[in-house]
């Protein structure tokens, strides 16, 4: 198994510390290697908490999370950075504004890596960005370009898992379609597995092999696209699919 999550529970305390909010309640699922996982759910359903836990940006209260059969907290820092990489929702905040894009990208590679430029060029080609951008600063790119650069930066580590927290959320339709194409290319490449959050169920259907639907910290449905489309017994899943159908109409 690539990712194995068992009985994962995460609670947040309010600022006063008196009220506890359950972000994830006894969540369990597994995903095999070379499968793309799409996570869907409304705001506050626990999607971001889940991917932040998978990226070790957040601790959890109970349960276990394993990647390639190993507890995520047993990975060394460098080893984990080669295993999991994450891209964020806001492409404007993903790059240090004071550093050139070239510097930010090269930082992802080891210090003594000899063919840095070649590796960077390969990844830039994968995300469809010209190579003459290395001396530019992040503010000189559009949101869509920055998101593509963020993907290139993450892929430079050749991670087993690329986690994307709502990568389409703040992008225009054209940029969304470019990012979707990039994800499909990464999927075909079969080197990196993708876990991504989206509100857009049609993107999830387009890219994912499996879909995890969350609501109020619980798993509503987890399965392949066919499982989700054919099982119309769950009201919430029906609502999501119908809402998407109406939008497409």
């Amino acid at each position, binding site marked *: 198994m690539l990712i194995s999550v068992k009985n994962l529970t995460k609670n947040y305390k309010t600022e006063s510390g008196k009220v506890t909010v359950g972000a994830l309640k006894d969540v369990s699922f597994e995903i095999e290697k070379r499968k793309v996982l799409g996570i869907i759910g409304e705001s506050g359903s626990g999607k971001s908490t889940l991917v932040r836990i998978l*990226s070790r*940006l957040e601790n959890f209260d109970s349960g276990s999370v394993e990647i390639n059969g190993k507890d995520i907290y047993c990975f060394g*820092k*460098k080893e*984990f*950075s*080669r295993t*999991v*990489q*994450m891209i*964020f929702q*806001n492409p404007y*905040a*993903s*790059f*240090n*504004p*004071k*550093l050139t894009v070239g510097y*930010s990208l090269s*930082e*992802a590679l080891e210090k003594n890596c000899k063919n840095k430029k070649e590796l960077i060029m390969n990844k830039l080609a994968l995300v469809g960005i010209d190579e003459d951008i290395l001396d530019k*600063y992040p*503010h000189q790119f559009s949101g869509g370009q920055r998101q593509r650069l*963020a993907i290139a*930066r*993450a892929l430079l*580590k050749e991670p087993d898992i690329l986690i994307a927290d709502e990568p389409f959320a703040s992008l225009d339709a054209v940029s969304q379609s470019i990012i979707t194409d990039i994800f499909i290319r990464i999927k075909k490449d079969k080197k990196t597995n993708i876990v991504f959050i989206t509100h857009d169920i049609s993107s999830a259907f387009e890219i994912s092999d499996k879909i995890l639907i969350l609501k109020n910290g619980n798993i509503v449905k987890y399965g392949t696209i066919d499982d989700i489309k054919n099982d119309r017994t769950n009201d919430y899943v029906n609502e999501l699919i119908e809402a998407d159908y109406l939008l497409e109409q």
Partner: protein
Amino acid sequence: MRYFIKRIISSIPILLGITLLTFAVMHITPGKPTDIMTDMNMKVSAQAKDRLQKLYGLDKPLHIQYAQWLKRFVFFDFGTSFKDSRPARDKIFERLPATILLNFAALFFTCIVAVPIGIYCAVKKDTFIDKGLTVILFVCFSIPSFWLALMFMILFGLQLGLVPISGLYSFNFDDMNIFMQIADISKHLVLPVAVSVIVSLATLSRYARSGMLEVLKQDYIKTAYAKGLSQKQVIFRHALKNTLLPMITIIGLSIPALIGGSFIFETIFSYPGIGRLGYEAVMSRDYPVVMGIATLSAVLTLLGNIIADLSYKIADPRIKYR
């Protein structure tokens, strides 16, 4: 370049406003410069007093006096001191090096102590160390500087005899070689610089802390950790420069204080700087010297703002001035 020329031109009315206000306040204040020379002397007649007023041009209406002052100011002439008839400009400029030395030393040490404290507190947010340092800094901030100066003078100067308590030079300064002279000046600077650093630590370190906390929340910091960089690399390479940017304004705005001097410190430590000169000038209603110092401070405040803007451009490639 055009932006800075525009900024300099737009600063002129502000500068005139400040000089007008200072001039008005000085003249509204009870007591005249000639009072010191005449009131204590029973032999001075009313006519002699009038003649003295006329001599200094104080008999003319205020707007004429201000216009005359402005005319001289254009040629960088602040007038003649009422106290000893020396040019006010010379009096100010001969005190300037001592004030610059004291305040630059104070700012330098404040920065090298406060910024690391602020950054350390941010990195160790909500720990015992963070909370402990916060309490200590607020205590430092709350202590009246004059009281702390007096306590330090008593403890380190009088009781322990470690450092001199006043002035900038020892009485035998001229007989010393260059190294001893440097050591002598340094020893005299210890107390005023220490007091200045202690009372200003809190402000700068809190700015550094809150700035760092803000930066540490950013996605590019999480990305930097995800790249496998160590905490040290993330803090120094990614967070520090972004944290220091807002502090440029604070440091830029402290430039006038560097030159304008501190009335309290310099008076308590009998330090031969602009601050003490200003205090003495205010007490003796020496209008030309007071106006000279006020104008110099105003020019430097405006200049400090412009320098801060310029520094922003250097520190942040996103900033473009039009």
